[in-house]
């Protein structure tokens, strides 16, 4: 997972990948929907969690990460 995170972070910030390929640097002002073939899509994957985007979460498709409103309250073990 760490390797994937670093690769994606590198790709979206520099436009390059470790295998020598290049990608277009995305516009950071818009929301991108990334489909990643991992089963742990709902788990913490670091920088993607920096700010959950209020997208409409009614089944955008397998592999998308969606967040509930106030999900942080649920994730906080001590919050009640």
């Amino acid at each position, binding site marked *: 997972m760490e390797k994937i995170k670093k690769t994606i972070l590198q790709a979206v910030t520099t436009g390059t990948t470790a295998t020598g390929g290049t990608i277009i640097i995305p516009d950071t002002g818009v929301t991108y929907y990334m489909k990643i073939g991992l089963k742990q899509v*709902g788990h913490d994957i670091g920088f993607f969690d920096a700010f*959950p985007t*209020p997208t409409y*979460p*009614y*089944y955008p498709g397998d592999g998308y990460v969606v*967040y509930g409103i*106030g999900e942080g309250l*649920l994730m906080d*073990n001590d919050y009640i």
Partner: protein
Amino acid sequence: MKYVHSIWSTPSLKKNFDNKYDMKYLDKNFFSYLFSALLIKKLGHSIDLYCDKNSYEMYSFIPYDNINIVDFDNDGVDSKFWIWGKIKTHMLMTEPYIHIDGDVFLFRDIIGDKILNGEYDAVVQSRENDKTLNLNFNVYTESLTPFNEKISSDINWNKYGLEAYNCGVVGFGDMGLKNKYALKVAEILTKLSTDDEFKIKRKKYDGMFLIAEQSLLYYMLTENNVKPLEIIPYEEIQRRNCEWFTIADEIGYAHMWGYCKYKDDVIEKIKYKIKRFFPEHIEVLTKFNKICNNL
């Protein structure tokens, strides 16, 4: 204040969904309903359940104040419209109440007595439009364009644009207004349920809940000059440039909408919180597991 939950199992037992998450939601949603109900009771309010006979076997384990078995199957509304369970429940209410979805968690008493004391005639979660929801709102509404004519007499698209009130929480103090709203939603759902073209082209449910339940509520309240209590106020959403998730965190409100509630970590956290903060109800989890093992 009287809170109500509702659940209708039939939509989840037929092929009404395009994905694996919403199918058989009866057992998948159980922990969420339990936690949601326990939080309402912790706040000192009562909570009733309106459910079909099939749901009763499982959901009667949850310590509701009252459980009402309702026939949702014989009203002429197709089971693709899962919201019918909720709308019929609205129709059955005769005194001020708040319907809360089973995936909504009120950690704080945000609404208090504001409906009972007449300060507000209605309460909703929040206002939705293409500014507060980044992408899919227009997709859903545009996909319904072929059916606009069939419902245009009920929903005035041109006058208000694409707007809706999220109904994760929706309640009424004005029963006349509530009756008018619920009857109109029922009328639209019945109309579409018997429409041959709709049956062919819209085999699945997606999108219609938004229009019939949520947009209609916005248009109807606006037409009647009713400003509802918005749990997440639109003014505050605008003030924060639509970055409104943080507001929910601050006020103690959570809504595991859509298929967020089916994520493994969300389900585990719900079970964790039940065990830690409501240990007197751990036996409910045991009973539930037992019945699931026997299914």
